[in-house]
Each structure stands twice: as C-alpha cells, then as structure tokens.
C-alpha cells in the first residue's frame, strides 16, 4: 500500500580510489562508478532503477572520491531524471555499513520508513518496488536481494541460506572455501531505520575488542589478517552474518540476470550494442562490426576494420583494416592500420581481455595480445601477455 508518509531514501555506495583497484587501468582516469556501461555511466543504472520506487525522497551516493569528481554528474542526473541525487563524501573508508551509519542524520532527515542500500557496481534488473513490498510483508529490519548461481561461481560471493517458506535469512557467509549454498547476495538491500541501531551495537563491540587488543600483546602478535579500525564496519560480515537466523533479516529472490562489475573483464562480459550513440554515418559495406560490440560517440572506425566482442570508448580512432577482438579500447586511443588488438576473451582471467587505457597509440601493423596497457603509451612493437606500465 504505502501511504504518503512511507517515504523511501536510497543510498548507493560508490567506493573510492583505493577501492576497485581491480578495475585498473580503466579506473586510472575515471572513477569506476562513472565508467560507461551500455552507453551510460555505471552508476546510472542503479539510480534510474531507484526512480521506480514509490515515494522516493532522495538518492545519496556515498563514497570517498573527491567531491569534484561527482559534482557535474550528480547535478546532471538530478536534472535529467527529476529526482534529487546528492554525493556524500566520507573522509575515509568506513566499510559498507560504516558509510551508511556515518551519514545517518542526513539519511533520516526525510524521515524515511525504508532505506535502500545498493552497490554501484551491480548490474541487474533491480526489482526494487517488488522487493519493497516483500520487505514490508516480512516485517524484519532488512531484506536482501538474492539470486541462485552456479555452484562453481558461488564461492566468489556471499553465500546464504534462506528458509524456503518464510524467506528468512538463516545463515550468511562471505566467500566461503567450502560449499554452503548456491544462493548468493546480490548487493542490493532494503532496511528499516532500526539498521542504524544494529550498526551502532556492532561498532561499539568492535571498539571494545580493539581496546582489549591494545592490552593483550598476544593479540598483537596475531596479525594474520589486517586489523580494521573500530569505525570500519562491513555490512556483510559484521552485521548480516550475526543477525542471520534471528528473524530480523529476510530474502527476496530474483530470477533475472545479475552481474557484478569488478574488473574490465566483467564489463566486456555484459556489453550490448549501444544503439543510441552508434554513429556509422560513413560506414561502407566493407566495415564489419559485431557481434557484441559497443562503440561510443565520436569514435571513428575506418574502412576495412573488423571489430568483434569489444568496447570502443569515446574519441577512439580505429584505422583502416585494424582488427579488435575481445578488448576494451580506452578514450582517445588510436589503433593503427593493419594492427591487431586481441585477447582470448576469458572475462575472469587477469589478462583474459586486452585493455588499452586512455590515449594509447598502437602503431601500424603492431599486434597486441592478451595484454593491459596503461594510459598514454605508444606501442611500436608487438606484445603478448604483458602489462605495459
């Protein structure tokens, strides 16, 4: 039902320059959330999904990038979608729950009854209104979006067990070594404001433990894993895991597609033909494009060029008879005549797709295979299986 009092606020976690390093070299020039995915900055997709939520009061982007990196985008998208979007900068990373807690006063300003939390690098159908309805029915403090994946890939994510009837979250574990479940956490959540109390509880527990650590020198020797500061609270491990099985958290399953964009390889795996910005006004019968090619505005593709399964970003020039297969070609780069930029196309391997950073020049007839090239390099000799700094 949702009366006019039941306002909703959405928070999208965007991270910062020290996070998402797996997205390099593309993230050396642009924050990962602003990297174009299917013709729009990555974060555009969760933002426009939020717009479908009834009674949405505000969207907050929370991260620790510099404000100026998001200033332009945020005002543009607010105007375009007619929904208030604001970027909130953390002074330092607080973890996914810590970040939410850090801005609780601002978030609660609109007195929302429900708060959505989304990760900016999730690509899915975002069934947010349906998820909200389910959440209200369950009456818990939070509901997670979950999806079934293959048994082999499940261990890369947070695996969880849910009651098949009540949909209650019974058990949660992050990246387990042994099989727990093929149901995983999508990185989309909806909470009631009670979540802040839960985070505060955990945060003070962590503080106490940190104080103890300082006293015990034996603890100090146990530096097997990195010790977080006490105000670094992770949503999954620190909040969800302990609350599982206590009738507080529930799940909503989606059967549509779901992908998480951690590496450029993930982007290549989800590319679509970007019809809106495709301008092949000068195409001749000789140009062969596709399948699975995304070309940005202002890219120039010369005659006789062949592109397969690749992403060509803004202002790129692919000269005559150039070949690009399983690659991402960065902004302003240039692919020379008869040169070849290719990879095997193993989207999850380290050098599985070839990535050229911003303004990379591949000279005529040069071959680049299974490599990553950082921005502003000129390749005048062929390379294979290399990272070029």
């Amino acid at each position, binding site marked *: 039902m949702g009366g006019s009092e039941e306002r909703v606020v959405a928070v999208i976690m965007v991270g910062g*320059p*020290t996070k998402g*390093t*797996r997205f*390099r*070299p593309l993230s*050396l020039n642009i924050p990962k959330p602003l990297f174009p995915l299917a013709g729009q900055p990555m974060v555009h997709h969760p933002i426009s999904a939020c717009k479908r939520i009834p009674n949405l009061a505000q969207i907050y982007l929370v991260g620790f990038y510099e404000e100026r990196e998001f200033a332009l985008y945020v005002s543009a998208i607010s105007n375009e979608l007619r929904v208030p979007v604001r970027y909130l900068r953390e002074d330092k990373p607080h973890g996914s729950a810590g970040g939410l807690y850090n801005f609780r006063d601002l978030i609660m300003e609109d007195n929302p009854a429900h708060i959505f939390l989304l990760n900016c690098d999730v690509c899915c159908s975002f069934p947010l209104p349906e998820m909200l309805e389910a959440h209200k029915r369950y009456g818990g403090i939070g509901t997670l979006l979950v999806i079934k994946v293959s048994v082999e890939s499940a261990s890369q994510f947070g695996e969880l067990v849910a009651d098949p009837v009540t949909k209650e979250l019974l058990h949660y574990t992050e990246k387990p070594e042994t099989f727990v479940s093929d149901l995983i956490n999508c990185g989309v959540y909806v909470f009631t404001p009670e979540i802040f109390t839960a985070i505060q509880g955990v945060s003070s527990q962590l503080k106490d433990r940190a104080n103890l650590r300082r006293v015990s020198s034996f603890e100090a020797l146990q*530096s097997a894993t*990195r010790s977080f500061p006490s105000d670094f609270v992770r949503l999954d491990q620190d909040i969800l895991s302990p609350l599982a099985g206590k009738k507080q958290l529930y799940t909503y399953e989606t059967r549509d597609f779901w992908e998480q964009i951690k590496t450029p390889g993930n982007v290549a795996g989800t590319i679509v033909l970007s019809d809106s910005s495709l301008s092949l006004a000068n195409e001749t019968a000789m140009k062969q494009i596709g399948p699975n090619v995304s070309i940005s505005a202002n890219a120039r593709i010369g005659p006789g060029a062949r592109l397969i399964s690749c992403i060509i970003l803004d202002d790129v020039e692919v000269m005559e008879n150039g070949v690009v297969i399983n690659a991402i070609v960065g902004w302003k780069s240039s692919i020379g005549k008869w040169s070849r930029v290719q990879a095997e196309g193993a989207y999850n391997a380290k050098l599985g797709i070839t990535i050229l950073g911003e303004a990379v020049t591949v000279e005529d007839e040069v071959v680049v295979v299974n490599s*990553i090239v*950082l*921005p*502003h*390099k000129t390749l005048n000799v062929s390379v294979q299986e290399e*990272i070029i*700094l």
Partner: protein
Amino acid sequence: MKALILVGGFGTRLRPLTLSVPKPLVDFANKPMILHQIEALKAIGVTEVVLAINYQPEVMLNFLKEFEAKLGIKITCSQETEPLGTAGPLALARDKLVDKSGEPFFVLNSDVISEYPLKEMIAFHKSHGGEASIMVTKVDEPSKYGVVVMDEATGHVDKFVEKPKIFVGNKINAGIYLLNPSVLDRIQLRPTSIEKEVFPKIAADKKLFAMVLPGFWMDIGQPRDYITGLRLYLESLRKKSSTKLATGSHIVGNVLVDETATIGEGCLIGPDVAIGPGCVVEAGVRLSRCTVMRGVRIKKHACISSSIIGWHSTVGQWARVENMTILGEDVHVCDEIYSNGGVVLPHKEIKSSILKPEIVM
C-alpha cells in the same frame, strides 16, 4: 641569465611513482628531481627558469609557487598543447628566454642528474666563442644512446650518431646545453628534434662545441637507473665531505636521512640509502641500496634492498623486499611477505608474496 628545463610528458617509465605525481616532482635523494636542477641554476646566478611542460600544469604550478618564494628565483611554465619534441619547446618559450642582453641561456633535461658544473660551462662557452655548447659524458655502452662524435682537442662537434652499431666514440649527449639566442632562429615551432635537426646544422657550421662533463651523470627516468643514480649522487656528496650524509654505528657507506625521520635500535642502514621526511624505521631493520620516500613506515625486522618505497607506504614486520621492487604511493606490504621485484600500483595491499618480478595493479 635564463634557463629552460625540458620537463616533457607522462613519465611512463617511472610508473608507478608517476601515477601519483608528475615526474619532475618525484623525489630523488629526498628532494623533488627538478629542485636539484633549479638549485644548481640559482647557484650560478640564473634569475629565471622556464619549465617546458605538457602534462598536469596545475600540479607543477602549485609546487612552483612554494619554491619560487623559498629559493628567490622566478619560475614560469611554458605549456605545449601538442608534443613539440626536444627542440620545439625552445621556440615556444622564445619570448621568455631572450631579452635585450643577448646572453646565452641554459637548456636542461629534467631526467638528468649530475654535478652541474655550470660555471665551468659558461667559461668554456665564452672561450670558444661558438653558438652552442653541449655537455657530453663518457659511458661504457655508447650504443645504447646517441653518440657525439667530436674533436677531442678543439671540442668541435663533428656529428651525432644514434645508437651506433660500430664504435664511433664513447661520449654521449648529457642533456645540458648552453645556447646563444641565435639558436632560436634555427628552430621552428613544430615537433622538432634538437639532436637530429638543430645541432647537426650548427655542427656543420662549425659552431657547436662539446665539453666533457666532469663527475657523475645519470638519466634517472627509469627505476634501475634511479637506484644507480642515487649511488653516484651520494658518492659525490662523500667526495665533497658533505655533512648531509648520516653518521653512526648503524650506518654503512653513504646514507642520507632526513632530519624528521626516525630510526630504531639495532638497524643497519646502507650503503646507498635515502630516507625521506617523516619516515619511521622501526627496530632491527636492514636497508641497502634503496629509497624510502616521505611518510613511509618500515616495521620491525624488515629487510629491503635495491628497491624504491613510495610515499606513505608501509612494509610489514619481517618482510623482505628486494630486486627492483617499486612500491607506488600508499602501498602496504603485510607482515612476513616476500617481494622479489614486485611493481605495485598505488593504494594496494600486498597480502601474499611476490616470488618473481610482476606488476600488481
């Protein structure tokens, strides 16, 4: 008197350090690279330095304001909108380099460190009365560079041979020039190479002279040469009996330690080490042939050799870091980790050992 420093572009060979700051601001022996040159120019009476840049001018300009005041020398930028090669920037900066005085001006390459015997170079230039003087330096493997073929007796330069296949001489262009303003008339405002297009013409007119650089010389534009360069630089400090070098029972060979850095008990530091401002070296640490940049913490019992540790990084307890490991800014090597030649980009945490040279993005 004026000078131009060719700063150029992206410094990709010094990545990952140059992913955080433009190359001229990368510290060498606890000082931004370009400051070594600016100080040498100031010492012989240069009043204005022009930096020819084509990348990140805002960062450079901020840095300059700070040093203009401190050093009492005028520093300006000449920004290329397209790369102009090694001679084009001189034409671009023409108005800043020539004045009524008709005095010659210096041109330095920002990647080079040496003793900068600029006073001797001025005397040399006056004595031969030619149009241009260049410094050359003797190297063991001339065919890696461009060789300057010259008459050793008169100093006349005959020609330049790029990466010669047979032995034609062992003197290479050291990247330090003293030029009369008339040289600018020979340079057009377009991408031009000073070695390939400008100098050969002056040499043909018998107006180009070369002076053999006394003392050390190094192009520190890449990590291996940076580390060798530090050794040469510290050696030259030793020869001058510099008080800047550290002393103490825990010091071996030539070591530079910033006064704001702290070193714990039981360490052995050196040879050829530079420790930057605000660094904390905990007890029992061994450092040799390495550079530790500003704000780095080296934890107890760690051992580092032949490496560069970037700003604000940490090296964990009992970690071993060696063989041309380059850590970018804010890299954290966990306790007990071994890095054999890891090249690590900024903002990374190293939780597992790097057994053979590898780039960590």
